[in-house]
């Protein structure tokens, strides 16, 4: 592994000399198979994702590709701004609850503030890296270059990649206004998870949000009266990962009936649909503990 990394660094330095006129991209690699610390590397121009991963990973079977992520500092900044906006809205709601003497709303807003402020979020184009497809098909394997904001811009990008170890415990998360937010073993039936984990008073009783590890989102009817209805699904977009979850992208779907590894089930505030959607847009990128 060390030899491979040394060769990788050497090749990057050489390529940096040869292409010094072009914008210099870099990548921050967090390899959770070996440590929690990150390494920063300069990238040669026009490098494709599979070529980068080939240099970083000696044995692809040691990586949990479905869980691994690829993003950028620019995307992270945009997500951080979004996080601050959502937090500001939650603080306003909490204050309104205090002013109105509404302890239930105050308490629920506090819980959501805690969830967002204490979680780590990693903005990602790829939520799950299609490693095998990328090295076989150029269409799945773009060059690591973010689009310029304007035509004359000669921008460099700071990419981030996080590699997770294979064979980690398969867990799913229940977050939001569950009475006891928790990590549960993957494989549990959705209905069982909903029926056996009670909700806070003031929680949305009719809709839960299922956030898949790959960023796809499903709006699930969970009450007795609507449980038989079709869910609405919002597929993750690698080109527009931070786009809003709104009804224009919704497709009718019947999600699988169990919680898979890395999935998150979220229940938000009753009567606050817009805020709940904004929370889901953030929670797509929440880093689940190993």
């Amino acid at each position, binding site marked *: 592994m060390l030899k491979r990394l040394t060769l990788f660094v050497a090749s990057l330095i050489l390529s940096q000399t040869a292409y010094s006129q072009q914008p210099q991209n870099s990548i921050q690699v967090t390899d959770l198979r070996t440590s929690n610390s990150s390494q920063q590397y300069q990238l040669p121009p026009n490098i494709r994702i599979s070529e980068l991963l080939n240099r970083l990973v*000696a*044995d*692809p*079977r*040691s990586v949990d590709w*479905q869980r691994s992520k690829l993003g950028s500092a620019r995307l992270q900044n945009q997500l951080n701004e979004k996080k601050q906006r959502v937090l500001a809205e939650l603080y306003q709601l909490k204050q309104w609850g205090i002013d109105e003497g509404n302890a239930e709303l105050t308490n629920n807003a506090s819980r959501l503030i805690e969830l967002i402020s204490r979680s780590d979020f990693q903005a990602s184009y790829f939520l799950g890296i*299609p490693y*095998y*497809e990328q*090295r*076989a*098909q*150029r*269409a*799945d394997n773009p060059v690591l270059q973010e689009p310029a904001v304007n035509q004359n811009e000669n921008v460099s990008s700071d990419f981030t990649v996080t590699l997770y170890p*294979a*064979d980690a415990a398969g867990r799913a998360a229940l977050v939001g206004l569950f009475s006891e937010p928790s990590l549960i073993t*993957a*494989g549990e039936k959705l209905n069982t998870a909903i029926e056996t984990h009670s909700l806070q008073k003031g929680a949305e009783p009719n809709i839960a949000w299922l956030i*898949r590890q790959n960023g*796809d989102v*499903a709006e699930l009817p969970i009450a007795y009266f609507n449980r038989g209805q079709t869910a609405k*699904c919002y597929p993750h977009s690698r080109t527009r990962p931070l786009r809003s979850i709104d009804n224009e992208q919704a497709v009718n*779907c*019947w*999600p*699988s*009936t*169990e919680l*898979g*590894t890395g*999935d998150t089930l979220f229940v938000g505030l009753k009567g606050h649909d817009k805020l709940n959607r904004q929370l889901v847009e953030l929670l797509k990128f929440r880093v689940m503990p190993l």
Partner: protein
Amino acid sequence: MQLPRIAKELSKTKLSKTILLLSTAVAVSGCGSRVYSMIDTVDYTLFGQPDVALTSEQIKQLPYAAQYAQFGEQPRAVVMLAFIDNQLANRGPQYQWAAGEDDILLTENGRMVGTRNLAGELNVIKQDLVNLRSEQGDPLYCLTSKPQDTDGCAKSWQATAEVTTDFGRQRYGIKSQITDLQQQSIQLPNGDTVNSLKVTESVTSNGLSANGKPSQWQYNNAYWIAIDSAAGEVLKTEQQLVPGLPRLKTVSLKRIKGSQ
């Protein structure tokens, strides 16, 4: 995604021309672009065309290891060896086979451990196998490592298969029992006759059926492992693990060890 592929299949040229194009592409391409060249040029696909049947001469001309692969009643296709990932303790190397535009088959010791892009709404195949995980060593690793001395090899194995569904994942508990080992002579499509160890396996798969009820499926699988000069290579298989991914039959066209 499937409709453009079908349209492409309709305009496909004859196989002999494809082979010629393949040879030309390989001659002019470097190793680094091996897979792109191969897939761009050879559009063998797992769906939508009659069975592929290569002559002995055509098989000799194949530049890489290859095998026939057939899922259920789907037409037989040729899949080419694209990558060999290095050997892990107790697992053996992993082979990535490619066909068509982006159809991918992953095998370890002959066992299918992953597929990509085979499943589709309009396909007979409804599930892709995302991964096959186990805390134990697969008996097939031991049997392929020493096919002429199998006494110390385990005869049972458990794993978890994770497959795609329309929107999400589903898991199956897999229990395997090796029920029979016997030597058998088999003939390969290139005309060679090879002595092999036939491994017969009974697989029980536990998961949820389409109506959401816990169900159990049972499959009898077989693997033929070479015991000639290139012993250990899996030459032929008939296998199934989960209900949504039909029975897979493979047979070696151009051998891996022979082509290295």
